[in-house]
């Protein structure tokens, strides 16, 4: 991030003329995937939930024709992850099936570098900080030789601050309006989230 910001500063210093446009706004929809290894780490079972829709909007400020700072707000829809574990209840073996439901809201700020100048298709790279408020609901069903029990854990919201990196491209319909597609990776201990997005934006 610091490197990207430094790059933006030096690039700005080298450019005498201002950028073609000062700012842009964009909206996007995407396929949201998140890893939950802390919940379902046993036996190498799938610990990702993949059925979540992401929607977001972003505002960006161009420092030069290549560098811009982007602030993005977004949210992901409820998604489910089911797990099961073997446990003991009153000294008797039991199986606990858990249903986790996750949704997120987020605010991200990042620095983006777009390749080429004043062309119709611009690949870009971005990196920055992602603040995620993750809502987590959990229900456990416990099956044993005793009557089965169902428990619902209190809903909780956790704030996560993580770095992210994005790779994507913008393809312009006309001089100002563009189609945008990208893949955003959020990191914690490895890749934590993957969002594949498409959207549109306008420079002004």
């Amino acid at each position: 991030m610091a490197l990207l910001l430094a790059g933006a500063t030096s690039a700005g210093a080298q450019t005498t003329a201002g950028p073609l446009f000062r700012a842009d706004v964009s909206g996007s929809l995407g396929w949201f995937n998140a890893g939950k290894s802390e919940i379902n780490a046993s036996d190498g079972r799938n610990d990702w939930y993949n059925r979540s829709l992401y929607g977001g909007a972003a505002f960006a400020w161009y420092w030069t024709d290549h560098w811009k700072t982007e602030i993005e707000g977004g949210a992901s829809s409820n998604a489910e992850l089911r797990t099961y574990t073997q446990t003991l209840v009153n000294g008797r073996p039991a199986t606990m099936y858990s249903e986790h439901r996750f949704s997120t809201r987020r605010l991200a700020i990042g620095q983006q570098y777009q390749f080429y100048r004043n062309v119709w298709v611009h690949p870009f790279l971005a990196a920055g900080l992602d603040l995620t408020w993750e809502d987590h609901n959990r229900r456990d069903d416990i099956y044993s030789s005793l009557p089965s029990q169902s428990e619902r854990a209190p809903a909780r919201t956790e704030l996560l601050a993580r770095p992210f990196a994005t790779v994507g491209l913008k393809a312009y319909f006309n001089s100002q309006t563009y189609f945008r597609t990208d893949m955003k990776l959020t990191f914690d201990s490895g890749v934590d989230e993957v969002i594949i997005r498409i959207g549109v934006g306008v420079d002004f």
Partner: protein
Amino acid sequence: MKRFIASLLCALFAAPGCAASQGPRTQVAPPLPAAPAIQREVLGEFARQLPLGARVRATVTGNRTIRGTLLKRTDVALVIQPRARVAEPLVEIPFSSLLAIEQEHKSNSTGKAVAIGAAVGVGAALGLLLLIAAALGGD
């Protein structure tokens, strides 16, 4: 036997090379004198006969490449409208700063470029995701 092989090798080394004895297989053109004056004269002659409205790609001093439409020719320079998404000022290129120039032919459209870009982007993103899923996913 050794004497025979030694004699044969001596004969082969002493004789002109087989390939060389058949004459050159490719014609090697002597390098043109790299005098900038001649180069500029040739480039200038070529540039002067380009039709107005032609799409050109010119390389100028400093190895800067300019792509655009030829709008005007004078005895000493070309005037090009750069090809860009957002209109940019005309560029005058003196023949004296011209290092290379070629005429380009229109081969694509904006829609095609957008479609290609979108397809490449979505394809690349999905491909990467599949790789990540394959690397990290279970089951």
